[in-house]
């Protein structure tokens, strides 16, 4: 086990990793930008280093600063959290060359699966269904049109280096495809430095269902079942849950086994998530792999009883996973709401500012993962998530009731939050009945066709 690790992140995930370390007896070194100086969670670490001014590009994303802090702080490993440098293969390599472990997959596995087009090719190799689409990258308009005619409109033009719901455009006919194609390439070049795009059939009303896996360095790969993340707004997840409602067990199991096959083929180790979309007939298709721990990992922790962050640290330090597939049992249902500092009545405009009053919910089956406290000044420089509210109950109906109860107890005054919006979503019959797809939020609340 490591003696000391550096947490290369901020906010709630930094606190999450720090908590796991404190229980494992591992010393922690934190980094922070000038905007995060004085954050309460920094009082829990052994050493903390300021890595730059507020903007992420000049602080949390500055590889040289992060590595310097790791060296000065004398750590053996770095946990990258999610976002920031978590899926940066170059950073992963730099860590290695400085004799610092990266708590996550190898750079090779990261590169292999991080390129979405390569990941699709790998999936085909191990007979994991992929969304019908182009064989590889599409280099020109004529090729795009040909593929579109083969697979049928509507189609999605997707950036191979994209992710997190960015770099995608839909087209329903040749004309729309021509402009979507050139625009997508230009955007991809600007956003990701890689203009490569491929085509996929656009699946109507898809469900977003992902499988959590974890693999150690000794050949054991375990699936920890699935999460349904279909409740999204503009491709950003709002609510996640496990198990996926109204999904036949046979399909659930098949998806999990596909995830393991794919991950094994890529020699992937540590935690990761294999994303699928599921159509209205319960056919599932592989989309991409997220080679990192995810925001919504707590719902899986609640139903399996497995601490995913501790497992990541254990695996990275070379220890075998303390459980095999047959030991993994799930109980009940868990739901997570991502609470953002945004005003749902003003087009979800971000609301940085001081939290004048904070009352957090509690009671059986309620978990609040957050770095904020009363008096905390939500900075304007980072994503707007201030906390994750998670519940766990024996049935889905009880989980929804519990979440409504917890949301009503959660008081955040001084800034706007998405709490009232979550309450509305959870009360909607489509959600209660468990028939939610990725277009649900837009259709039900914003009357926008996707």
């Amino acid at each position, binding site marked *: 086990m490591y003696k000391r690790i550096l947490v290369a992140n901020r906010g709630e995930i930094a606190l999450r990793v720090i908590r796991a370390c404190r229980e494992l007896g591992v010393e922690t070194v934190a980094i922070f930008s000038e*905007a995060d100086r*004085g954050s309460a969670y920094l009082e829990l670490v052994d050493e903390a*280093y300021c890595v730059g001014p507020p903007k992420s590009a000049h602080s949390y994303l500055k590889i*040289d600063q992060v590595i310097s*802090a790791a060296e000065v702080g004398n750590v053996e490993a770095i946990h990258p959290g999610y976002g920031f440098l978590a899926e940066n293969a170059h950073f992963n390599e730099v860590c290695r060359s400085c004799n610092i472990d990266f708590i996550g997959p190898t750079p090779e596995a990261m590169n292999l699966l991080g390129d979405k087009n390569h990941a699709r090719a790998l999936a085909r190799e191990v007979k994991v269904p992929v969304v019908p689409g182009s064989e590889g990258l599409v280099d020109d308009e004529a090729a795009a049109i040909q593929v579109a005619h083969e697979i049928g409109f509507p189609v999605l033009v997707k950036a191979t280096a994209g992710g997190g719901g960015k770099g995608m455009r839909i087209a329903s006919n040749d004309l729309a495809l021509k402009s979507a194609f050139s625009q997508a390439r230009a955007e991809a070049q600007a956003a990701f430095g890689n203009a490569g795009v491929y085509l996929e059939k656009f699946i109507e009303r898809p469900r977003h269902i992902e499988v959590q896996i974890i693999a150690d360095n000794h050949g054991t790969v375990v699936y920890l079942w699935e999460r349904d993340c279909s409740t999204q707004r503009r491709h950003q997840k709002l609510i996640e849950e496990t198990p996926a409602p109204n999904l036949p067990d046979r399909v659930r199991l098949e998806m999990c086994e596909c995830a393991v096959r794919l991950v094994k083929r890529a020699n992937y180790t540590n935690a990761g998530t294999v994303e699928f979309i599921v159509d209205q007939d319960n056919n599932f298709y592989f989309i991409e792999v997220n080679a990192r721990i995810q925001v919504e990992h707590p719902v899986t922790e609640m139903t399996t009883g497995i601490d995913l962050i501790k497992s990541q640290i254990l695996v990275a330090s070379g220890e075998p996973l303390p459980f095999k597939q047959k030991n993994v049992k799930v109980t009940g249902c868990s739901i997570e709401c991502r609470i953002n500092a945004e005003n749902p009545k003003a087009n979800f405009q971000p609301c940085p500012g001081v939290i004048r009053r904070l009352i957090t919910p509690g009671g059986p089956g309620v978990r609040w993962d957050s770095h904020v406290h009363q008096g905390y000044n939500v900075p304007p420089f980072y994503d707007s998530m201030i906390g994750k509210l998670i519940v766990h109950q024996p049935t889905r109906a009880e989980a929804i009731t519990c979440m409504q109860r917890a949301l009503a107890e959660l008081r955040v005054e001084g800034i706007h939050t998405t709490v009232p919006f979550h309450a509305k979503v959870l009360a909607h019959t489509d959600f209660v009945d468990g028939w939610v797809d990725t277009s649900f939020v837009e259709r039900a609340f914003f009357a926008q066709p996707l």
Partner: protein
Amino acid sequence: MSDSDTGPDDVFDVDRIRRLVELMEQHDLREVDLRQAEQRIRLCRGAEMVYASPVAPPALATPSSPPASAAPAAAAPAPPPAEVVEEHMVIVRSPMVGTFYARPNPNADPFVKIGDMVAPETTVCIIEAMKVFNEIPAETRGKIVAVLVDDEEPVDHGRPLFKIDTRAS
């Protein structure tokens, strides 16, 4: 840290802290960072740099040590980082995380000492990060009146290194 009586040699001894605060005010120091064995205390005086609405002064010191500064930051958003403490005094701060070296090499004299005059392009120290030795310029004209870090001390972004009196010529 024990909560029984602290001795005069303990960083957290109240009398010592009181003296430190007096010294800070006397010499117009903004930050003092002390380490003794496993103990560490950092005292920050005055309003910290803020970039958005009011924020409470940070405390990297352990919770049981009395804060040197109790005044909260001003209500209006402050301008970008001001290097000026009093009008004529400028603090040179570390731009990066690394190790501070006062000398160009172990056998040489320090780059600068108290009383030296510097120009904006004068190298005042080296900060080593990832095996690269970065020469740090004064960026100000004036006289070195304080050296705020020890040789070979780890520093991070924003750490005060030197104090320069720009009135001097």
